[in-house]
């Protein structure tokens, strides 16, 4: 299902009661939103839950008039997804503190890529895992700014608003994140590009 309408037009259609507006928006942006969540979250079923929750929150905000249309629908959706991911990790941290259990990533839950050929998939999977482990080693505030800028496409001003810091701090965090990532990539001789 493809539509030539802009995001704003589809949003308006949905608000005015046309369900196909949101269907088109979901089909248009599902890959970006899902990939963003997947990079953050190792667990496939958790990524799926957050993906669903994101769009349910989107429709709630649209229907209750909480969305201000400034032509950046996708950035707004990414922010919602980002907040849900952060909420999840906060809850998880609290639970871990309460239960004192060690967390182990469930290797069986790692996702599999369904397209392209097997060799390409393995390379791609390796790169995603390397990116993920690289980002996981960054302090939370640095990881957040990298994800929001590089994968959610937010401007530094939007990142500053989203993370409740000054633009200067957001830029500074990015600078330190880049220094740290470069160091880790060199130490581990990682190649994060697909040829």
């Amino acid at each position, binding site marked *: 299902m493809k539509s030539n309408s802009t995001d704003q037009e589809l949003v308006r259609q949905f608000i005015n009661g046309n369900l196909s507006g949101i269907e088109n928006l979901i089909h248009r942006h599902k890959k970006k939103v899902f*990939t963003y969540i997947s990079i953050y979250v190792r667990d496939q079923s958790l990524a799926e839950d957050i993906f669903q929750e994101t769009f349910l929150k989107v*429709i709630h905000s649209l229907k209750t008039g909480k969305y201000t249309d400034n032509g950046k629908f996708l950035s707004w959706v990414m922010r919602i997804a980002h907040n849900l991911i952060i909420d999840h990790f906060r809850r998880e941290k609290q639970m871990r503190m309460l239960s004192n259990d060690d967390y182990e990533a469930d290797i069986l839950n790692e996702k599999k890529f369904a397209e392209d050929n097997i060799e390409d998939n393995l390379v791609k999977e390796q790169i*995603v895992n390397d*990116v993920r482990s690289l980002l996981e080693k960054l302090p939370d505030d640095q990881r957040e700014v990298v994800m929001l800028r590089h994968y959610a496409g937010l401007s530094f001003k939007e990142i500053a608003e989203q993370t409740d810091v000054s633009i200067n701090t957001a830029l500074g965090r*990015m600078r330190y994140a880049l220094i740290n990532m470069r160091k880790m990539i060199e130490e581990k001789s990682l190649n994060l590009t697909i040829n």
Partner: protein
Amino acid sequence: MDENFTRFLLFYDIDTSQTDLIADAFGLEICLNSLLPDFDSIIEQPDDKLVNKLLIDIEKAISRY
């Protein structure tokens, strides 16, 4: 980032596009793009069943508004 840079940002009342230009000028963007793969090369497709279930859930949810 040092104090002078903070003053510089405040003085020019930096807005969205200007901050991005500054990030470019400092090489942040180029560096970021050279370190990490872009979205398109690692894109993942959510399962069709998941999307279909979401659309059904949305249809149900809409009836409450």
